[in-house]
């Protein structure tokens, strides 16, 4: 479990706290989506969860390990893999496969095992073909895919992803979500997905909405995503299909409001024929 207890973090005394007394837990096999406007503290939270940043007040424990304890830091980073929002901040090697191998190598795995992990991770994101390409010769989306593969290859207990699909095409976005759901359901890996794409948050078990460094809303997708007015006040939106359903219901339809996906709405409308 990751336990965040009354955590406060301040980059500078002259600035307001980026996070202010945040508390929540990520259970093993949990899937949490984090939404929130620009500057609300999402990336700060991501960096706190794997111990890159340490809370000024309050505590964060990962599998019982307190992130303030310097001697535990390598274990904490191994337990919680973090995909940065800018993949360039994460690149450590010179080619795609070296970069993805970096994590497993640090874990001291045997060569063969590393090879397997790297190939499996690259296959998952569709980058096997480009495995020998130097990193600086990649397109934006290719960099983002490499960064994701690097974390997958580490097989951490928890994966925190900071806007991992912001530069991907539709197929790439689908593949990433599919991969996360598989890891979550089959291997019980806990997922924290930070995103501006509310359509992605629909897949989570729970949603946290941050604003100005505090948790403003929390609950299942049904509980959070139908509160259109509250979301709009925070500068956010409910999913497009949900807004369409609301518009149709205004016009006299009777569709369940908690309809988030295209295919669900197709099914509901066409059952009526």
């Amino acid at each position, binding site marked *: 479990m990751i336990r965040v207890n009354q955590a406060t973090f301040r*980059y*500078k005394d002259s600035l307001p706290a980026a996070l202010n007394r945040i508390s929540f837990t990520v259970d093993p096999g949990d899937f949490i989506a984090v939404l*929130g*406007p*620009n*500057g609300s503290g*999402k*990336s700060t939270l991501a960096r706190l969860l794997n111990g890159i940043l340490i809370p000024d007040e309050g505590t964060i424990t990962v599998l019982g390990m307190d992130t303030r304890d310097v001697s535990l830091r390598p274990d904490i980073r191994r337990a919680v893999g973090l995909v940065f*929002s*800018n993949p*360039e901040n994460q690149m450590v090697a010179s080619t795609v496969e070296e970069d993805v191998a970096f994590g497993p190598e640090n874990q001291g795995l045997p060569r063969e095992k590393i090879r397997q992990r790297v190939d499996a991770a690259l296959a998952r994101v569709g980058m096997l073909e480009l495995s020998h*390409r*130097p990193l600086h*010769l990649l*397109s*934006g*989306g*290719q960099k983002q*895919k490499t960064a994701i593969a690097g974390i997958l290859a580490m097989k951490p207990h928890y994966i925190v992803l900071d*806007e991992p699909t*912001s*530069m*991907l*095409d*539709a*197929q*790439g*976005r*689908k593949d990433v979500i599919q991969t996360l759901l598989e890891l979550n359901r089959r291997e019980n890996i806990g997922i924290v997905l930070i995103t*501006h794409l*509310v*359509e992605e948050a629909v897949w989570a078990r729970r949603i946290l909405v941050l604003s100005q460094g505090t948790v403003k809303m929390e609950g299942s997708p049904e509980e959070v995503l139908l509160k259109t007015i509250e979301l709009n006040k925070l*500068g*956010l*939106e409910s*999913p*497009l*299909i949900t*807004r*369409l359903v609301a*518009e*149709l219901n205004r*016009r*006299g*339809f*009777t569709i369940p409001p908690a309809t988030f996906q*295209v*295919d669900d*709405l*197709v099914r509901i*409308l*066409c059952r*009526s*024929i």
Partner: protein
Amino acid sequence: MPIYLKNVCFTYQPDSPFQNQALNGISCTIHDGEIIGVTGPTGAGKSTFLQLLNGILKPTAGEVEVDGVVTSQLKGRALVNLRQKVGLVFQFPEDQLFEVRVFDDIAFGPRNLGWSEDKVKRAVQWAMDMLGLDKDEFQDRSTQELSSGQKRRVALAGSLAMRPNYLLLDEPTAGLDAYGRQLLLALLRKLNREYRTTVVIVSHRLEDLAAVCQRLLVFQAGQLALQGTVSGVFGHQEALQEVGLQLPPLNELLWKLKAYRPEIDPTVLTLEEAAGEIERAFEVYFQGGPEDV
């Protein structure tokens, strides 16, 4: 003036082991004063295309003509002049934030144009307002100490402040929250309408392109796979799928419903229009049921 591309090819690292032809035989025209969207799968050549339009990259074959000049013939001062008329916002905003202070970063372009400090100040203030960056809160902050959406806004403000005639934006809505996205899209419409700014937007989010663009270019593996009006391109669902792209949720929905109700037009662009299509096709079944008809 329009931007013309004639048989443009671009190869990265020619004659090296990593030689890579990113664009192959591109011919197209970007009309004066239009907002045009560019999309296509990862690695299709979109960012390469955009960088050819302001002379940062020069074609390895063919010609790019911008603002009446052929970019491959430009050197030195003339190239700098062109870049001042053609603003480019990179895919990763970190790639263009150089100054420490936010104000100085946004003021960088305007100062290079030789504007008076007073005019520079007004331009920076205007650009910050337009992008929802509060001046008192942000002008003295360090560009390295911002959230990613804040960095994106500063990068956008820096290009806008110069009031370029042409604006090239690489994934400008990536990393922006919903409010910021609406703000930016409205701003692009305004610049285009009031100042006839030509805008080229690269994006994976077809709903953003649909909201502002008049035409779309679809790239695949370095070639122009499809082009046309937004509705026209959205009418080619199969071709888009082959390229690996997905329509915006509304159009995907309407295409799926069309299989049951052929009278539906799957190429409409707004939520209200989509609701209208569904209402016409399905309402008898929902409102009172078929026996009332």
